[in-house]
């Protein structure tokens, strides 16, 4: 089966800076693909290429078996590639229902009396949020009263409802507490179960592992390889990420620093 979306040897240069260098991977329908990498690994550049903000300098993006070029984020969206930016897609002062349909309001009536189809808006908002596992008590409540996880659900539910085939999630868990992060991971699994291809960008190995089917590791603009989940261990991933070795070094360093203190404490007694 042809993958939903595929990157082949994609590179992006900004002047003399090589932001991405020959990255390739493919996402199948009903699969969660994790992009793991530390800051500066090229994750944001990759998202911007996938969502149509930037065009790749070399290499190609393929949808199904067709090579494509996105002319704008709207173009990518129309082709079923929906990007959910952390906190950049909902308006806190507006109601859940107004947010859900913002920019794509369903209308009823005719001529100058054309108006928002409120009964339909409320019903769909409640239904779609329910399918994501969030019971919206009242679609008229403002988004500001929702938790971080619920806001992510709103953005994801909206993308799914409007026909996204590929869902790109930019660090959806990074600002959330443990419980809320679990809510979002469950959402990702739900989206997968509905047959979407999910690209889940994160720097947190512990969030990536529970839901990932495949993992691509990025480091300094390069891909360190794509692995099926069973092929690689959590520790190995941590080690391969830029921070891995640093953390081990740091541990040794801290151990060295605490030694004189404990010796000093011992001598005092």
């Amino acid at each position: 089966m042809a993958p939903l979306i595929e990157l082949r040897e994609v590179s992006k240069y900004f002047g003399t800076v090589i932001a991405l260098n020959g990255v390739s991977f493919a996402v199948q329908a009903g699969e969660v693909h994790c992009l793991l990498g530390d800051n500066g690994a090229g994750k944001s550049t990759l998202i911007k290429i996938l969502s149509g903000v930037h065009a790749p300098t070399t290499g190609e993006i393929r949808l199904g078996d067709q090579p494509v070029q996105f002319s704008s984020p709207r173009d990518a969206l129309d082709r079923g590639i929906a990007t959910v930016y952390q906190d950049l897609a909902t308006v806190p002062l507006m109601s859940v229902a107004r947010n859900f349909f913002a920019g794509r309001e369903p209308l009823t009536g005719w001529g100058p009396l054309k108006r928002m189809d409120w009964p339909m808006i409320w019903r769909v908002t409640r239904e779609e949020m329910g399918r994501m596992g969030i019971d919206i008590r009242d679609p008229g409540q403002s988004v500001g009263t929702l938790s971080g996880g619920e806001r992510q659900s709103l953005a994801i539910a909206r993308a799914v409802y409007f026909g996204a085939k590929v869902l790109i999630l930019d660090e959806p868990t990074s600002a959330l507490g443990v419980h809320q992060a679990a809510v979002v991971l469950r959402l990702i699994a739900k989206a997968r179960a509905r047959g979407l291809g999910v690209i889940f960008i994160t720097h947190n190995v512990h969030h990536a592992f529970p839901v990932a089917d495949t993992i691509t590791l990025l480091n300094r603009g390069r891909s360190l390889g794509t692995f099926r989940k069973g092929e690689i261990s959590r520790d190995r991933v941590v080690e391969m990420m830029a921070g891995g070795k640093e953390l081990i070094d740091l541990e040794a360093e801290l151990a060295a620093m605490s030694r004189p203190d404990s010796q000093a404490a011992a001598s005092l007694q």
Partner: protein
Amino acid sequence: MAVTEQHQGKSRDERVREIGIARQALRRPELGAAAGCVLVLIFFAIFAGDSGLFSARGVVNFLEVSAQLGILAVAVSLLMIGGEFDLSLGSMVAFAGVIIAILSSKYGWPIWTSIPVAFAAAIIVGYLNGWLVVKTGLPSFIVTLASLFILRGITLGATRLITGRTQIPGIKELSEGDWLAPVFSGQFGGTLLVWLAEAGIIDKRPDGLPMVQGIPVSILWWLGLTAIATWILLQTRFGNWIFTVGGDANAARNVGVPVARVKIRLFVLSACAATLFAAIQVLSVGSADTSRGLQKEFEAIIAVVIGGTLLTGGYGSAIGAMFGALIFGIVQMGIFYTGIDTDWFKAFMGVMLLAAVLFNDYIRKKAAEAR
């Protein structure tokens, strides 16, 4: 579909707490202004009850003051919900008034041609304001502060250049017999008032006619525009766009709302409201003056903010702006009828503004809890 049906079946969530009507009302932005109106009415009923403020003449007087400001406030409320300011509003009032007066009195154009020209000028000014804000990304506060001075300067300079003076009288005579003029300065409800006087509900003059023989048409404009703006905000796609654009322009762009188009339209609307105000004023007073509309932009903002609209955009109501303008009118005429020196009016409005902002802030926090 099973999932759907199942979900509809349990749409009564056990976590939905029954919210009382009072709690629900708290969610409406105009509540504060409506309550404020009642308070102000009670206050003047006590202190100015027998001074004529609540006679037919007094009521029409304060409604007319409210209506004229209210026409501006409705447009400003939409603009402010959309996240922008228009400080050039007052200058636009003078600019439009002078256009109407010069064309008609100096060049002999009939009123029904000079008023459309003023509206065309308003569309251009509003478009330029909006275009500059959208293109430069500068705060509208700065851009329209510049147009406040530019427009006022052009109005003053051009009027003196063309007429040699800063005031253009004699419009009343010119508007007589004009078919368009009554749309702005006419009166309605004459027969109703006669009937009310016969029924003894309103006072009669010694000659048997009612104290007030007509209600200014500006009151109709005010109520009509408020109704239309409320319909737009609550029932139309454009209304949803206004809230989205004012709430978070970035998020609006991400979901495909044409941010620039929405904002430019709101600036055009604001300039057109200023022109409507100018047409009403020029025709009912019978003259234009380059100093007209002074500080109207601030009065409109005060009415809108008292009406519960957030200074930062994304939240508010046109009905609130109507109540804000009504408070403004009642207080202004109330102070006049009570015999207090009207110099104190501005101090009173400043205090009202402060109180309204504090009250709205409190209400909004309560609203966020009411879920």
